[in-house]
């Protein structure tokens, strides 16, 4: 199984494997959905690694479930996290009592900030430069416009994708080795949970939005239920709503059911005006 090609001493993961993942990462927005965003693409990209590291259906099922959780980041930079996940899955495959929760925690903690950086760079800078070049030619009908546009954008963007796959894997592997040596492996679990949960908390506040614009009182004293809730604690409604969903999930409600309930709630809310 081990070839001279391995990236890390004694590693099962070869450079070829990493490139396979990077290639699959190209479809990172293909099955993007509102429920868990880029979860399915992320799992899809990691399948070659999962298949290589785990041989039983049970292990594979575990790993796939992990990577079907909520995921989102700037697609071209997602490989950095895929690389780290690869390194962590490998660690998990070789070490007995590795705590798998940290795989997801690290991924979650990093995806938000990475999207911040990535969206600035990819959408805010690289795209604008490419568009500037492309349009200046295209305005006169020159077909070189769209062509250059695509080249100027994609050469760095896709190059980065492959580069980050390797960088992420190396970074992850080195970090894990270091942590293993210093016996801090269980600290990783705890630290990753702290960091991951704080970021999830922040993302919940930023992404879940619900407001009840029903007015109370009239004239100068008029206010809405939403404002009253925000007066008690800003973000109280989204927080409460998320916890309702959390408890429904705990009571084994299916996500499909919850999704339908939400759609009904949203449409009814718009129709009767109690949400807005």
């Amino acid at each position, binding site marked *: 199984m081990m070839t001279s090609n391995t990236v890390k001493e004694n590693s099962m993961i070869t450079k070829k494997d990493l490139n396979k993942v990077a290639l699959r*990462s190209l*479809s*990172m927005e*293909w*099955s993007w*959905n509102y*429920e*868990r965003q880029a*979860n*399915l693409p992320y*799992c*899809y990209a990691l399948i070659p690694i*999962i298949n290589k590291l785990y041989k039983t*259906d049970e292990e594979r099922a575990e790993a796939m479930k992990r990577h079907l*959780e*909520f995921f989102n980041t700037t*697609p071209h930079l997602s490989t950095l996290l895929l690389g780290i996940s690869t390194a962590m899955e490998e660690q998990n495959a070789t070490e007995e009592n590795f705590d798998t*929760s940290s795989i997801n925690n690290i991924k*979650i*903690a990093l995806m*938000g900030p990475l*999207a*911040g950086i990535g969206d600035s760079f990819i959408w805010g800078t690289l795209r604008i430069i*490419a*568009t500037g070049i492309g349009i200046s030619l*295209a*305005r006169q*009908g*020159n*077909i070189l416009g769209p062509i250059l*546009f695509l080249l100027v954008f994609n050469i760095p963007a896709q190059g980065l994708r492959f580069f980050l796959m390797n960088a992420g894997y190396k970074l992850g592997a080195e970090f894990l080795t270091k942590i293993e040596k210093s016996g*801090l492996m269980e600290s990783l679990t*705890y*630290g990753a949970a*702290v*960091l*991951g949960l*704080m*970021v*999830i*908390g*922040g993302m919940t*506040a*930023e*992404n879940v*939005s619900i407001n009840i614009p029903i007015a109370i009182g009239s004239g100068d004293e008029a206010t809405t239920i939403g404002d009253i809730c925000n007066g008690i*604690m*800003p*973000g109280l409604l989204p927080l409460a709503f*998320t916890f309702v*969903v*959390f408890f429904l999930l*705990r009571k084994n409600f299916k996500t499909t059911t919850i*999704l339908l309930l939400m*759609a009904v*709630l*949203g*449409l009814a809310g718009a*129709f009767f005006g109690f949400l*807005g």
Partner: protein
Amino acid sequence: MLQAILLALVAMLGNAEYLFGTCLLSRPLVMGTLTGIVLGDISMGVTLGATLELAFMGAFSVGASIPPEMISGTVLGTAFAITTGTGAEAALALGLPIASLVLIFKNLSMVFILPMFVHKADKYAAVGNYKGVERMHLLGGFFGVNLIIGVIVGVSFYLGSPVIQGILDMIPAWVQKGLELTMGLLPAIGFGLLMQMIMNKNVACFFFLGFALSTYLKIPVTGIAIFGAIVAIVLVQIKNQNKHAVETAGVSEGDEDDDF
């Protein structure tokens, strides 16, 4: 008819950028050009593409905020402008409302249809059937969005612009509004699933910490990650120091804080 099919394929190619590395095939600059090629007026296609590109400059998706569906807007706008011989204004006047309209369909799909593929994938994953998962990904993207856009573009071109206008007028405002509201609710499922996986009573307070930092102090997610990393490091240090202390207890004692 042939042109309608070809334009549908162009639109599907545009949407396929999400299969091919989010490579910007869907941008008006590219879609306009390809529409021009199909309709035999390359230079016009490129020029109209550039015009629409400028109009859609600020339209790009960040997180879960999805911009108007530019592909259908550009392809149909450009196509009608070329076939009727009208100019850039006509392309814009048609392209923009179409893009907003088709976005509703795209969102409907990403709210209702694609999650079905995800749930199916969950089931395949549960039994270790990785081929099933792969299939759901590939088919989901195709049937959930790609094909729909293709069909909309093809049929619309075939029916012509007046019909589309009619459809556009038929959809009540509350449906669009309701869909928007639903899109604000949906992320709660994703975060709920994450919480279910990670949260236990020893660390639950950090979820609230992150939430409160965001709502009370308006710290963006990157900032929360920075503060979170600092908190995590300090707490891990305390934990380890504690453990280390216990290990050295009874043995020697002089240097238990050296490494701090």
